[in-house]
């Protein structure tokens, strides 16, 4: 049995990063699925692992690791298997730069839109009292606010507009980057590709006005190359919802 357990939701955004990194390294792990829409991440069992109540988290023996991008770096450093960081120091800098840009600037905007159009409507139908109790159990105050907004559909027009601006700009910057290099930040497949793929794999479906064969040929070429990796197929097969299904839809329509 593996001494690694990964607590994750769908192969998507933050959860998908360590899933795919482990898969690429060929490191066996015990998968512990956390149903985010059932608020599993705020239940006592999981809070005992990560008191912040966010996913993903990974245990390796008695070590507990959190923060998806940092977990990926740990996985790459700690285990044998293909090196997922480029050999050149300036390339490594660029890989780290892109991951931060995604984690802190672009990713939150993807999330806000995703929560307003997908997460909120999925959860909203439940019994209001049950939902109120679930929100009260959320440890991080900023997450309580985010969940309330998602459930009530009360994101402000200005903040949504700003998120849409960032998504459009971020896609344009990624398209330009992939015109310069084969992969994000370098000419080899790296943690930056794993990071960014997890938030962009469904763009042609979710943002057809911004991304697609005509508008972003470089992104499409890169998506296709990453889609074809065996580790990606195996990771996306672990998904249980429609999110993961979108992967095969795009895969089919890609050329």
């Amino acid at each position, binding site marked *: 049995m593996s001494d690694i357990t990964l607590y994750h939701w769908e192969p998507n955004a933050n959860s998908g990063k360590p899933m795919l990194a482990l898969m690429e390294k060929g490191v066996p792990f015990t998968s512990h699925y956390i149903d985010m829409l059932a608020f599993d991440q705020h239940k006592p069992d999981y809070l005992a692992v990560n008191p912040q109540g966010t996913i993903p988290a990974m245990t390796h023996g008695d070590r507990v690791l959190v923060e998806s991008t940092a977990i990926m770096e740990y996985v790459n450093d700690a285990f044998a298997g293909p090196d997922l960081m480029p050999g050149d120091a300036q390339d490594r800098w660029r890989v780290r730069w892109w991951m931060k840009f995604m984690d802190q*600037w672009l990713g939150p905007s993807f999330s806000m839109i995703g929560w307003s159009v997908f997460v909120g409507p999925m959860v909203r139908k439940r019994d209001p009292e049950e939902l109120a109790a679930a929100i009260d159990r959320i440890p991080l105050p900023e997450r309580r606010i985010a969940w309330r907004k998602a459930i009530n559909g009360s994101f402000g027009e200005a903040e949504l507009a700003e998120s849409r601006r960032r998504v459009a700009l971020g896609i344009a910057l990624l398209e330009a980057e992939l015109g310069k290099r084969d992969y994000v930040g370098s000419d080899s497949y790296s943690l930056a590709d794993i990071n960014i793929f997890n938030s962009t794999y469904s763009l042609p479906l979710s943002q057809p006005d911004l991304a697609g064969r005509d508008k972003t040929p470089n992104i499409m070429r890169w998506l296709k190359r990453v889609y074809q990796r065996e580790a990606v197929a195996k990771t996306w097969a672990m998904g249980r919802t429609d999110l993961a299904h979108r992967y095969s839809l795009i895969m089919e329509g890609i050329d």
Partner: protein
Amino acid sequence: MATILYHGEPNGPSLAVLAALAESGLDTGPNAIACRAIDLLAGDRHRIAGLTETLALDFAVEGEGPVLVIDGEAMTESVFVAQYLDEVAGGALQPRDAYAHWQMLMWCRRITERCAPAAAFLGLRAQGADRLAAMSDDDFATLVAPIVSEDLKQRWHDTRTGAFPDAADTDSRAKVAGAVDMVEAQLVDGRDWLMGPLSIADFETYGWLMGMVAILPEAFADRPHTAAWLARVRARPSVQSALARSATGRPEAAWAPGPEINRWG
């Protein structure tokens, strides 16, 4: 082609990178990295000539900070620039053990994501906003004209107009105090440096906290381990050489628009 480090006054991210550079030894010898002081609060960072790749400068999450230029490519984000320098030098500022390395990265993220935006907010309000407010409309318009990022530009405007909301003030004080608490707790076992051995975390943390001592003294009261650590970092020759680059003699009071305060949990 020459490698040049453009840096602001040795405070915040500029201090961290200058100290890492001095530790690396890459500032001396025939291929030494040249240092050029720029005035971040004059918008100098957006007027660096001869760049061929500007993405990282234009969209740095860190906001106004140091820029390392190699072969025309602008490299930003102080932690990553410090890692770069350390790795090129085959240096010792990052733990080799994977878990210890993860701990250092996590530490630096807490500083850059939570403490840095808060310190930049408080520092700029106390020791930067007046200078922008005193500018003529034309001069200010000229200053911000080359800023590519709309959200960074907005932070410049907010600074000039004195838009420092109370909620952000409360939040920022709590975050700086939280960072000091974290430092104090980390050092309680008697270690000299935050991660055990000296690392990038010491410089990044020192850079952001150094100027907070005067602005938020209550956060540092009864924090003996933190006080001793601040003095220890300051005494380090690399930090002394970084501080010696100050043009104003008060580097701890030099601020420019920094990272944004989290807009989404």
